[in-house]
């Protein structure tokens, strides 16, 4: 609760939270807010300017950019959420197993992590997409495979930090089972730090998903996605350069808000990771 009150005092962090909540709500309620269907082609309105029915204009196929931006939240941001949730779950389970049980199993998990971390994540993702083919499910799987090792290792080190604490040692000497100690003492303490890690990193997941979709390896047309919208805007760059602005700014603001929130959370939880943002 101390964390919450600290966070409440940080005005800019609250602005970020409010902004992100609005973005998520806009994504959820996109069908009710959007003035047009995001995939309906309307050649008459091709490259239309800003008007009341097209708040941000229309693209080269006459699709409403504002509506595509709203529906894009569902792909870009929500897919990043799913990716992050699964990655953190795997990292927590394996990291906790390694940190709590130590010994052989710890050794095995860490060596496997070493091998996975010896690939730069960009190469790893390209390799997996290369083998499984382009597509959004494959991108999610690829990013989970590329990231789980780093999370496992970070979470293990967080767990280890707490197992060295005196009250945990005391609980162990008192004869409590490992599972009990983990559930009672380690889990609640580590949860906050894991949340910080995930918030700091989700921006990079959004950037990666949109970058891959920009290359045509991720979300496939006609599903709206911010990175892909930029790719389409690239083709009409000479006649309508302003089409590059809405998706770019959307990505920039959402990622910046997550990064700032992560920094604030880190301050509020008073933790310092060797933040190696990847």
């Amino acid at each position, binding site marked *: 609760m101390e964390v919450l009150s600290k966070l409440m005092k940080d005005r800019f962090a609250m602005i970020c939270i409010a902004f992100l909540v609005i973005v998520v709500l806009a994504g959820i309620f996109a069908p009710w807010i959007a003035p047009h269907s995001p995939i309906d082609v309307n050649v008459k309105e091709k490259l239309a300017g800003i008007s009341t029915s097209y708040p941000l204009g229309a693209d080269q196929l006459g699709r409403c950019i504002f509506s595509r931006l709203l529906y894009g939240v569902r792909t870009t941001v929500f897919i990043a959420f799913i990716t992050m949730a699964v990655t953190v779950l795997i990292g927590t389970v394996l990291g906790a197993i390694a940190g709590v049980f130590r010994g052989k199993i710890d050794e095995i998990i860490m*060596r496997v992590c*070493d*091998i*996975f971390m*010896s*690939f*730069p994540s*960009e*190469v790893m993702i*390209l*390799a*997996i*997409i*290369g*083998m*499984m*083919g*382009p597509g959004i499910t494959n991108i999610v799987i690829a990013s989970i495979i590329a990231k789980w090792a780093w999370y496992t290792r970070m979470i293990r080190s967080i767990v280890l930090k707490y197992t060295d604490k005196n009250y945990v040692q005391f609980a162990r000497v008192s004869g409590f089972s490992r599972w009990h100690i983990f559930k009672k003492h380690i889990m609640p303490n580590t949860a906050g730090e894991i949340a910080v890690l995930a918030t700091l990193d989700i*921006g990079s997941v959004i*950037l990666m998903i*949109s*970058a891959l979709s*920009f*290359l*045509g*390896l991720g979300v496939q047309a006609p599903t709206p996605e911010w*990175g892909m919208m*930029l790719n389409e*805007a*690239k083709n009409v*760059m*000479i006649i309508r*350069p302003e089409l*590059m602005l809405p*998706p*770019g700014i959307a*990505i*920039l*603001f959402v*990622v*910046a808000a997550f*990064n*700032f929130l992560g920094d604030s959370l880190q301050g509020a939880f008073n933790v310092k990771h060797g933040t190696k*943002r990847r």
Partner: protein
Amino acid sequence: MRHYIIKRLLSIVPLLIGISFLAFILINLTESDPAEVALRVNEITPTETAVAEMREELGLDKPFIERYITWVTSSIKGDFGNSFINNQPVIDEIAQALPATLLLALVSFVIIIVVSVSASIICTMYEGRMIDRAIRGIVFFGEAMPGYWIGLLLMWFFSIKLNLLPTSGMSSWTSVILPAVTLALAYISTYVRLLRNNMVQIKSENFVLYAKARGMKESVILKRIFKNSLQSAITALGMSIPKLIAGTVIVENIFAWPGIGRLSVTAIFNYDYPVIQAYVFLMAVLFVVCNLLADIVTAILDPRMRKEV
């Protein structure tokens, strides 16, 4: 020292085995049969006999372990097989594209060092003042900006609006400017942040206070602060070289730069497995070697780092 290097060298052997194994099994995880893909991309109808012949030609009929060993031994010799698309040896294609990527990475590297070192020195000199806050603000947004978006905006502004630089390809020496700047921008934010925080931290150490008390010149003190913060910067830069080369993928595709990043994405679209496999394997080896070198350099610079292996 020698003991440390030998130990560190030995530690990468299992890593290399693991990497090669991973790169190899990836191709075996595909849902589609490589033999069938190889036929399809050459527009040959994959009849049963044709597939069987292709399997034999690619050596897919042999047991898994035997195939792995054959692949590793020939990979070490530089033979990654032939591309499915044009039947050229993969190593030739990579050798052809590699210089372009290395040039791009080198130019970006120079930009990164020059800009981040000067920006972080300015920040340290004027800590807490207007200019420091301005640079940190830019850095903050720089980290959140999609690199390919910056690339597109730069391309629009400099090539289309001002018509100063070529939009794409590698036609003249000015072609490298836009892709290199785009690539560098993604890393500059990280390094300015790292170097600045490091230098500001060192600024409050006792030896700086002592130097100030002795009345040493501000520029001499700054030089000492900088030298002390170099170590972590070198490690970070060492790690960034393979990341830079891997990071060229997006930039090369925006600016149609004929490097290995573009080659690999084209290969993905064409299901050209041998090219993808070779790219992944070489990148991973490069990453391991650069990490090793960075570790050794750090160990030479700072004896405290030698203990951990």
